């Protein structure tokens, strides 16, 4: 399949439809622009005053313009009805059910970090309360540790870990202002709005390790063309992560509200979660 040029690496299941739609609509746009542009240039050349000194009152008689317009309308309608509306319906309605064993995680945005809240082994999110929020004490989401469900919950800052090839539901909200949770490589973007929680479903398909390997292969491939510094490039790729970008202006450090997403195998993910769980129970002791 031809890829839409200029897009970032693709690492999610649903992203393919977005990429395909982008390609399709840009091809349509290009065709329209080229056709229109060709007519435009021809007209300007043919009907310049030096060549065509006497204008015709009646003007164009052909129905071509009407057909062209109709064509555009049909193409737009096809994109709309054929792809966009059904796709959105899948996105919104097809939040994976329990049978698909989705990974559930809360993401609570704040100026200027992404707080990630895992339910822990019991699979239940502990109660949260805005009055218990304490950034410096490591409780940015206001988790109530007195709630039994909260005992094993894990809170991480700016670090989202997810297993590969399992459906994910991010329960997205914000503590203060409107942010936008964007994962460019996974083609995920959704506004984080205070006072609302929205479910963002997606499925990562490429682990961070694979992603880096792909980038390295690409760098090595293009190495012959760009002399020098392959080792540096490869070293830089070793630090390259999937990024969580903030796509909605949220204040003075909006530009650096950057988190990382690590996509791991199921085992690695469980191991990480366990480590974090042990750590959390010690650190979060509020006064």
């Amino acid at each position, binding site marked *: 399949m031809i890829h839409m040029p200029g897009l970032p690496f693709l690492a999610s299941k649903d992203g393919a439809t977005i990429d395909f739609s982008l390609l399709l609509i840009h091809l349509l*746009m290009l065709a329209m622009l080229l056709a229109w542009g060709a007519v435009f240039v021809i007209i300007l050349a043919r009907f310049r005053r030096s060549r065509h000194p006497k204008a015709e*009152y009646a003007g164009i008689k052909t129905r071509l313009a009407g057909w062209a317009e109709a064509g555009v309308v049909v193409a737009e309608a096809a994109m709309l009805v054929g792809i966009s509306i059904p796709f959105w319906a899948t996105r919104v309605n097809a939040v994976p059910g329990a049978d698909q064993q989705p990974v559930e995680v809360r993401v609570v945005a704040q100026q200027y970090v992404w707080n990630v809240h895992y339910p822990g082994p019991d699979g239940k999110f502990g109660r949260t309360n805005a009055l218990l929020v304490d950034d410096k004490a490591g409780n940015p989401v206001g988790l109530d540790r007195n709630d039994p469900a909260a005992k094993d919950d894990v809170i991480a800052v700016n670090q989202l870990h997810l297993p590969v090839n399992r459906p994910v539901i991010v329960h997205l909200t914000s503590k203060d202002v409107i942010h936008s949770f964007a994962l460019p490589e996974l083609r995920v973007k959704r506004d984080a709005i205070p006072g609302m929680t929205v479910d963002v479903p997606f499925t990562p398909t490429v682990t961070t390790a694979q992603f880096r390997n792909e980038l390295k292969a690409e760098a090595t491939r293009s190495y012959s063309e760009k002399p020098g510094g392959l080792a540096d490039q490869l070293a830089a790729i070793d630090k390259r992560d999937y990024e969580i970008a903030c796509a909605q202006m949220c204040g003075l450090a909006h530009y650096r509200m950057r988190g990382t997403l690590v996509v791991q195998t199921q085992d690695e993910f469980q191991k990480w979660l366990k480590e974090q769980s042990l750590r959390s129970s010690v650190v979060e002791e509020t006064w």
Partner: protein
Amino acid sequence: MTSHSPSLPSKAERNPAAFSFRAALVSTDHKVIGILYGVTALTFLLTGFLIMMLMRWQLAYPGRALPGASALFGSNSARMPGGVMVPEFYYQLGAMHGTIMVFLAIVPLLVGAFGTYLVPLQLGAPNTAFPRLTRLGYWSYLAGGVVWLSSFALPGGAAQSGWTSYPPLSIIAGHGQTFWLIGMILIIVSSIAGAINMIVTIIQLRVIGLTYMRLPFFVWSQLVTAFLLLLAFPPLGAAGILQLMDRVVDTSFFLPSGLVVSGAALTANVGGQTIPRGGGSALLWQHLFWFLAHPEVYVLVLPAMGMVAEILANNARKPLWGYKSMVYGTIFLGVMSMLVWAHHMFLTGMGTVITAFFQATTMIVSIPSIIVLTALLASLWGGAIRFNTPMLFALAFLPMFGIGGLTGLPLGLAVTDIHLHDTYYVIDHFHYIVVCGTLSAIFGGIYYWFPKVTGRAMNERLGRIHFWSSLVLLNCIFMPMFIQGMAGVSRRLYDGGLSYAHAQPVLKLNVFITHAAFALALAQIPFIVNLLWSLRRGPRVEANPWQATTLEWAAASPPLAQGNFETPPVAHRGPCEYSVPGKDKDYTPQWEQ
């Protein structure tokens, strides 16, 4: 005051370039106020441009001192310490660039300057229907602009929550936001006054014989624009009042419960008691704002289409093709533009049905634009095209608006909007329409109607230099932004994406864009020189130098200070009867028997 020979006693009265400043201050004449609008809005345009250049420096060279900035701002300034811009100043510039350009420059140029000046002339009217309302509109607009600019001097600086002023960010922001709201309310007053005046003038003051279907397309575009302003601005006014209350008297219309800002719960002191704020909705503002701001996009483009249509017909020397379809298309566009606002909000968690509705309306609203664009292109077919400066700008409008409009499609479809939302692609789409498109039309309009306003022609050679350099540079600035947007680079990043790994491959484009923007500034010098030089030294012209057909050309150049016309003209035919078969000259003005 310039000295003038006794043989021209009426010069002061006839030549607006010579009018006294004092007279202009109290004038209720639509021409004087139109010129005031034009001069003021061009000044704001320049201000917005300078703001953009400051921002572009920061984007190209994040963290590097701007040469000369220490001298200008002081090395210890809160905004640019040591010449390096701080993020909050960048965000002030960002918010104010947007608002200044939209509300103080482009719309006032299109509606305030061209609309106020030309519409009564094109109707054969002596003035607007409510001359004092015209004046109120201008002074209220100016006051709003002054409030906005003065907010830069506040301790916390100007508004910095983006031109959209989304709460809760805008509610917890500094005093600049309050000034922004007050300025906005003044501008809303100005716009509504202007819109009422425009509609009444068009409906009531058409001269004998000037039926609706004989109105120049420019007048139609102004009429639809005025209705958009009239209907879309008041809801923003309501939103502005509510946000002002949120900021000043601690209501919580836009603040949901449970907000924790900077580690502390957001509270208000009400009657000596500290109570938590909340109970409102952050999205309420977005609905009210975009209910204005999407029609506002059409306000930014319809009058430009109107001007382009006039210039194209005149220089192709033939009637507009499909005039009626253009008129109906424009009206349809106006109605539909009220029903598309939530396509700016696809990512706020909207459901399937609402999303489908707004996607569908968005696709439908593109149809009239396509009709108008097709009609304008078809109008050229069979013409005898003159390539003078106004025509070049008007022609450039077509492909530029075309690109801007086309790139709206992937943003209007929810599926592709997911990736492109809030990236440089959006910025680019908007700027292709408003800068590459509308601003081209405005420049075309200035070159085209300058002889009518001043009685003198502008220099053609300088005009061509201005056109070609601007066209090339505008595309150098905006084409690379599509690449950045496609790569997923968010907008409103103070460091232009430096913090993000996924932005690295397209980061160097920032330098190129910035250089092109600085070059674009240089490319405006021929225009400014041309404008000032022609005002005094341009060759004098007759009443109808372009051999045009609409009624403004029936008046002297410049038109009579009082009442515009010696005797009110009568309209005998449609607005662009060029190259009528059987006539010996290739234009048949509306006012000729």
